């Protein structure tokens, strides 16, 4: 799976948990999942679980904590599926 495919899938997985729907219009790798998209901590856990299911990976607590932006999530998943 290439980076573009991971990015597309990551955005699709995040979207149901986004509170600030307006921010989805200009979503990019620099978009902050908590700050810009209005995802709260509990929903970020939901998103991490969705990543684990969709990519068949396990995300550690430390790895999950490193996810700030969409790009962080894509990079992390890229490493875990490699």
């Amino acid at each position, binding site marked *: 799976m290439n980076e573009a495919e991971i990015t597309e899938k990551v955005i699709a997985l995040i979207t149901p948990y986004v509170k600030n729907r307006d921010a989805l219009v200009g979503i990019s790798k620099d978009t902050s999942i908590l*700050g810009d998209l209005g995802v*709260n901590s509990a*929903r970020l*856990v939901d998103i991490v679980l969705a990543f684990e299911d969709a990519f068949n990976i396990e995300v550690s607590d*430390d790895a999950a904590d490193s996810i700030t932006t969409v790009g962080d999530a894509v990079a992390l998943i890229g490493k875990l599926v490699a």
Partner: protein
Amino acid sequence: MKSFVGNDLIDLDAAHNRGRSQQPRFLQKIFSVAECAQLADQNAGDFGFALLWSAKEAAYKAAKKAQPHLVFAPRRWSVSIESLLPGLADRHGRVQIDEQTQVAVQWQSAAHWLHCIALLGTPSARIEHAVAALPTTPPAANFSARERAGFSRPESAAVRSLAKQLLQRCGIDEVEILRDSEAGLRLPPRAAVNGVALAGVDLSLSHDGAYVAAVIAIAARDQP
């Protein structure tokens, strides 16, 4: 040691908070084995879930101010609380973050919300806190350009307005509530005058669903 405050609010009626206690994978991701067992043994449902989760969130907010590199790893932390069952208006507990870091927590609850306040370090001379329903109209408080750079959502404005009311109650007027970013990460909100942090004043803000909550901690005079 300086003291740091954190808080977390849970709207008990919000759809996204319902059924959490019935999601085993979610629970195993955020709670220790002992906490999962306590939740099940006491048959405490979503209210018990809210008690444990809000304690971890509030404690994290307080501890992160003292340890900026603290990793959000809630299942590694241990919440001590006697009962997870509803019925008590006020209750107290603690969250053990690591061997050196223990955070005192207290909860207030009403029919529709649960609010947890966490305090790390020396007890503050004064703590003011409040929960309010999210207003249907924009809050009356005026915000400076510096303040507005730190938020965009109406609930963020509402919770800052509530915090300003609490600060006024403590005799602190003309204050800004700023939220800066550093290396792409948002720092905790701080009370400031002309951009300079107010010494001895800490605050924490939270919102969820239809409610907002703010806590102000004023340090004792002999605290640095």
